[in-house]
């Protein structure tokens, strides 16, 4: 534990990737199994303890300190683990430990204890730790330590450590788990390469580049095929005799959230596509899909109301045969043939429509269609090179995405709050309002879209123009206008304004624009797309059908 705390601390303050790699390799080389594997898991975010969660840790600190002082401290420090590390009051009757446990002892103990026992155990550990050790302990338990090491970077370091190629690590990664003993044995040439689990193992996906104007110079349209870009989440569906599994683009298992889809997947294939949901009006918007995402418990009612639906656009394996080396069009042809052979016929998925791409005018026509806000589940256009093999990663020139233009409004800054983590001393979280009957009503929050330099300017403006503070929140004079960009807007009963924007971000700071000229709430009404939350507008349906055809 002490060594791990030192490692985490040094990683945090080290900027250069080279230096970070040195620190990690040094730690792997001198730390025995299984501790190094647990450290790797903590950094790669693959550790999870059922009870060791933020809420439990907060309960613990609040039971030991003044909750008001804790909240004020948290607001200032901007991060739970560090706030507690500093604030922790060592109990006068603390149990003295001879030494801090090893990581594997921690893992074993965390897994065994009940919630209440865990609290007590944690208290003893915190009593016996330094500030930096407390911080590392809480990071270890709660996961996602944010020390500037991504999973991908960790894999690169491992590849370097074992002098193997990083794709070899990728191949075996998802069939392994903490404490990664087989992995280290292999990397140190003491054992064979672990078998990439033949069962239900995620395979790295192929990604696209945003289409830019420069790509279109001398662009040969005949070499590319087009598809709609769907507004759901990218998934990989694997089904074989061992069962079925669903993975997100980053390889996270999301199987447990979509049993309705997986129960029906009875075939032998690895498919690439977009996960969406159905509604009574057809395929739903991203907003509809969100009803099914990030839920702690499965909600039967939601599952019936929004059944999972997948639009398949590629195949990596079909009946055990590797499709990846084949050209795109051939893969698609094989996929269609395979599709038609399935019995019973597949009705919970559809094949993505291939669109012919004739020339620039034709592409612009397609873009125009994709820009229509009344088709809730299409957000742009994909261009894929007809002869491209399925290449892992983000190869140049093969797949392009073009996202439709964001919607924009000019909104007035109303409230600001300090950011967390790296931005903890800056007012970086903003609430914006639009005019309704001569008053500003909050419509959304935005945290991104500005440079560090702009952040400093906005921060300074806020400090000079605040009118009230409510705890961590400052109310400011309604004078500064921002152009907000967002992907879509839906009606919402949960928001006071009645609207919920999707992914609002700042596109411009309008230092020049008087607040009175900012937009009115009514503007959002016209931007609402797709299915209405409360009632359906009948005239939208024919439009959708026409479009689908």
């Amino acid at each position, binding site marked *: 534990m002490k060594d791990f705390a030192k490692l985490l601390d040094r990683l*945090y*303050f*080290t*900027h250069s990737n080279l230096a970070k790699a040195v620190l990690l390799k040094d730690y792997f080389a001198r730390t025995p199994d299984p501790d190094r594997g647990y450290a790797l898991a903590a950094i790669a975010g693959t550790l999870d303890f059922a009870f060791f969660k933020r809420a439990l840790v907060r309960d613990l600190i609040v039971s030991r*300190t*003044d909750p*008001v*002082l804790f909240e*004020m*401290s948290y607001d*200032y*420090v*901007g*991060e739970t683990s*560090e*706030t507690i590390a*500093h*604030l922790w009051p060592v109990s006068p009757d603390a149990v003295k430990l001879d030494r801090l446990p090893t990581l594997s002892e921690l893992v074993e103990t965390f897994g065994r204890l009940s919630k209440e026992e865990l609290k007590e155990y944690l208290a003893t550990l915190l009593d016996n730790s330094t500030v930096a050790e407390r*911080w590392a302990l809480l990071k270890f338990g709660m996961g996602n330590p944010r020390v500037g090491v991504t999973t991908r970077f960790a894999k690169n370091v491992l590849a370097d450590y074992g002098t193997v190629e990083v794709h070899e690590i990728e191949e075996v990664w998802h069939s392994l788990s903490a404490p990664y003993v087989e992995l280290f044995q292999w990397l140190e040439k003491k054992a064979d390469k672990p078998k990439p689990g033949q069962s239900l193992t995620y395979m790295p996906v192929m990604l696209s580049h945003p289409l830019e104007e420069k790509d279109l110079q001398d662009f040969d349209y005949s070499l590319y095929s087009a598809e709609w870009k769907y507004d759901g989440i990218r998934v990989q569906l694997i089904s074989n005799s061992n069962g079925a599994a669903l993975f997100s683009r980053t390889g996270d298992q999301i199987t447990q959230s979509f049993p309705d889809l997986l129960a029906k997947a009875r075939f032998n294939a690895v498919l690439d596509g977009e996960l969406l949901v159905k509604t009574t009006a057809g395929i739903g918007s991203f907003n509809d899909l969100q009803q099914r995402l990030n839920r702690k418990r499965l909600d039967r009612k939601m599952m019936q109301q929004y059944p999972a639906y997948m639009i398949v656009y590629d195949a990596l394996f079909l009946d055990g045969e590797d499709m990846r080396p084949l050209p795109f069009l051939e893969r698609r042809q094989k996929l269609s043939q395979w599709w038609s052979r399935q019995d019973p016929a597949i009705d919970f998925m559809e094949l993505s429509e291939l669109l012919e791409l004739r020339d620039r005018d034709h592409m612009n026509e397609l873009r125009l269609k994709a820009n229509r806000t009344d088709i809730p589940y299409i957000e742009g256009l994909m261009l894929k090179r007809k002869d491209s093999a399925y290449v892992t990663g983000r190869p140049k020139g093969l797949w392009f995405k073009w996202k439709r233009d964001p919607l924009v409004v000019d909104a007035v800054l109303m409230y600001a709050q300090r950011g967390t*983590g*790296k*931005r*903890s*001393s800056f007012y970086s979280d903003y609430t914006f309002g639009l005019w309704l009957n001569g008053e500003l009503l909050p419509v959304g929050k935005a945290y991104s879209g500005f440079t560090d330099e702009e952040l400093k300017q906005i921060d300074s403006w806020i*400090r000079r123009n605040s009118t009230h503070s409510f705890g961590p929140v400052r109310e400011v004079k309604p004078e500064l206008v921002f152009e907000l960009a967002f992907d879509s807007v839906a009606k919402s009963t949960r928001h006071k304004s009645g609207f919920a924007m999707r992914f609002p971000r700042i596109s411009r700071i309008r230092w020049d624009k008087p607040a009175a000229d900012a937009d009115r709430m009514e503007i959002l009404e016209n931007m609402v797309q797709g299915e209405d939350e409360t009632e359906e507008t009948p005239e939208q349906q024919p439009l959708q059908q026409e479009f689908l055809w």
Partner: protein
Amino acid sequence: MISEQIHPNKWLKVTPQGLYCAPGDFHIDASGDPVSTDVVTHGHADHARSGHGRVIATPETIEIMKTRYGADCAREFVPIPYGGNIRLGEVEVGFEPAGHILGSAQIVMDYAGQRVVCSGDYKRRTDPTCQPFTVVECDVFITEATFGLPVFCHPDIKLEVAKLVESMRLFPQRCHVVGVYSLGKCQRLIMELRAAGFNRTIFLHGALLKLCELYQRLGVDLGEIKLVTESDKPKLGGELVLCPPSAINDRWARKMPDVVTSMASGWMQIRARAKQKLVELPLVVSDHSDWDELLQTIDDVRCREVWVTHGREEALIHALGKKGIKARALSLVGYEEEDNE
């Protein structure tokens, strides 16, 4: 002789120029428009300003002001040493050490049967460059709250200095560049390094030199110090360089070989603050009181009431409320929000 007690909130007011004592007709640490009499707690720029009529302060503070702003930065200077008094109008005004930096003083005001102590910035830890804080019992204690949150618990400066020395031993080729505030922090760090046995030349950014020389004139022996010249820079591998915090990531530091970026400040306790400034070796060294020192001091002075000038006053007022001590924020303007530490 006034026999009736008058509550200090009747005779000490917050004005746009700072705290004003009406029966003595003077301001404390005045800002903004010029005032006729400015009683100055210490020489930091957000407390001591140029352009006022008569400045009353300790002799050291007056020297610091003259060094920073020029000999004509006030019309008249009245030096009062620690333990000394001066009568201003109907108010007896005394100066006691605050332990913050060289010359820093608490202003003790006696009027109408009430004693108010305005502590300025202060700390309770030992500091070889200044006299230790003196406890003065009073009715109203005016305190800062720069580090007024329970997360702030400053480590022993000896441990932080040891970190720096250890890093220099570990990386003997690298140039260690430490950001320090030019008045107080710089000289204290040097003295602590000397006490830890670091006898080599310490290189200084030009902005630090004048004040270091003043400290030496006033009897603080800083050992061998040297101005960094352009031609020195590439040759500073393995050396220790001190500069203002703004210079650590500036072009100024770029010519030095393989720099370890460090900073000595109370804010370095918060990881994200160190990270924002791209500091690799944060040293938690503060010239202010940490949370426990603030509460301890308020206990020590046995006051009935606490007024808080600047910093994180909300938390301190909350904690004092729970102890049954009346406290309020003065909401003075003009203090730097954070970076003057």
